[in-house]
């Protein structure tokens, strides 16, 4: 209780002030006593301070000693140890409870750390799983894409081949038809029955010439 120490300072002047006030009031009081109750004053040593009457000293010292020593003995032997005991008990109880609370807190913290750890583990595991799955999907996608591309190319190739064949077929048909027409024209106009092979060769030569 250090703040109470500040209260000690007034004692220097409070002593002086006390003496001053005492003398002041005693003077005023004596005056009052002298005027108000003059005969009464004679009862205690001519109106002086009862405090300064040595006749009352032995009884006060004696009873002060008796009561104070008794009080000291009772306090130091009985009352104060009991208070100390109760206070110690309470302190002990408080520190014990605090210790228990601390242990429980530690326990909760370890549990919490465990939870945190398993949570992190699960998270990394999930992350790995996701990675793996997405890689798999990517691989499947690209494989399918490749296959699709190959398929399309194959079909394109086949179509082109078919078109080429049809074209050659058509060209051949045109050539034979042209030869026939040419032979027919020659027979009708000139009455010449030309050789089909020759006619065909001639047609081919003309077609070659015209592109």
């Amino acid at each position: 209780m250090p703040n109470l120490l500040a209260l000690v300072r007034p004692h220097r002047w409070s002593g002086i002030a006390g003496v001053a006030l005492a003398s002041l009031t005693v003077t005023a009081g004596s005056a009052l006593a002298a005027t108000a109750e003059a005969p009464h004053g004679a009862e205690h040593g001519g109106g002086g301070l009862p405090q300064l009457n040595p006749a009352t000293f032995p009884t006060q010292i004696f009873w002060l000693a008796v009561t104070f020593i008794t009080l000291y003995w009772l306090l130091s032997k009985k009352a104060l140890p009991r208070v100390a005991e109760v206070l110690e008990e309470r302190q002990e109880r408080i520190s014990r409870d605090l210790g228990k609370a601390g242990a429980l807190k530690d326990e909760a913290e370890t549990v919490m750390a465990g939870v945190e750890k398993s949570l992190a583990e699960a998270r990394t595991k999930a992350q790995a799983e996701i990675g793996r799955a997405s890689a798999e999907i990517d691989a499947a996608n690209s494989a399918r894409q490749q296959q699709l591309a190959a398929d399309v190319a194959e079909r394109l190739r086949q179509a082109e081949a078919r078109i080429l064949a049809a074209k050659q077929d058509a060209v051949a048909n045109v050539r034979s038809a042209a030869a026939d027409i040419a032979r027919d024209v020659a027979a009708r106009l000139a009455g010449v029955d030309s050789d089909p092979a020759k006619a065909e060769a001639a047609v081919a030569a003309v077609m070659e010439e015209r592109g």
Partner: protein
Amino acid sequence: MDPLHQFQINPILQIVIAGYDVSFSNSSLFMAVAAGLIYALLVQGMKRRALVPGRLQSMAEMFYEFVANLVRDNAGHDARPYFPFVFAIFMFVLFGNLIGMIPYTFTFTSHIIVTFTLAFAVFVFVTILALVKHGMHFFTFFMPHGVPMFLAPILIPIEVISYLMRPVSLSIRLFANMMAGHTMLKVFAGFTVLMGSALGALGFAVGLVPLALNVALTGFEFLVAFLQAYVFSILTCLYIRDALELH
């Protein structure tokens, strides 16, 4: 009407031992009442030994911890064994002062012989304590270290006198405060009564002024009652520290 009449010692039971008049008086009665109340407060308060204290137990514990802190802060940790002594002094003076605030009671701390006996007991106690703790080394207390030798003829008498004056200042401070306060209360009360009887109706009106002052003074006296008990015990603690540590 005599404001000093309240300090009169009135024997209740005449007792004479070895030629000395040690009658049981009003002063002795209130010493016994104070001691009884202190003991009753502590015993009755701590009776239930509750973990969560009630009113009375709180009060008992508060006094205990207050004085324990006082001793620890001002006399040091080595002063633990003297805690009951300081506690007894604090409680005895405090209860003496406070009981005196009740009308028609007797304030035994307003008698110089009582406060001087208490202060002298403290003085003897700390001197014996210092002598037992430090032996002849105790007398270096009057000649602090590092003081030039030529100052010794002046310093040593001053230190010795100031040491011997301790019980005087300790006792007069308490006695003067208590007596002055109680006398003042009585004087102002006397003014009120005097005016009422001398001036009639007007006197009653004027008499209200000292009465109002008395109310304020009563509050002030409660503060003084506590403060003086506190000062008495804190100085006791400081003297114990001096005895234990020799500066």
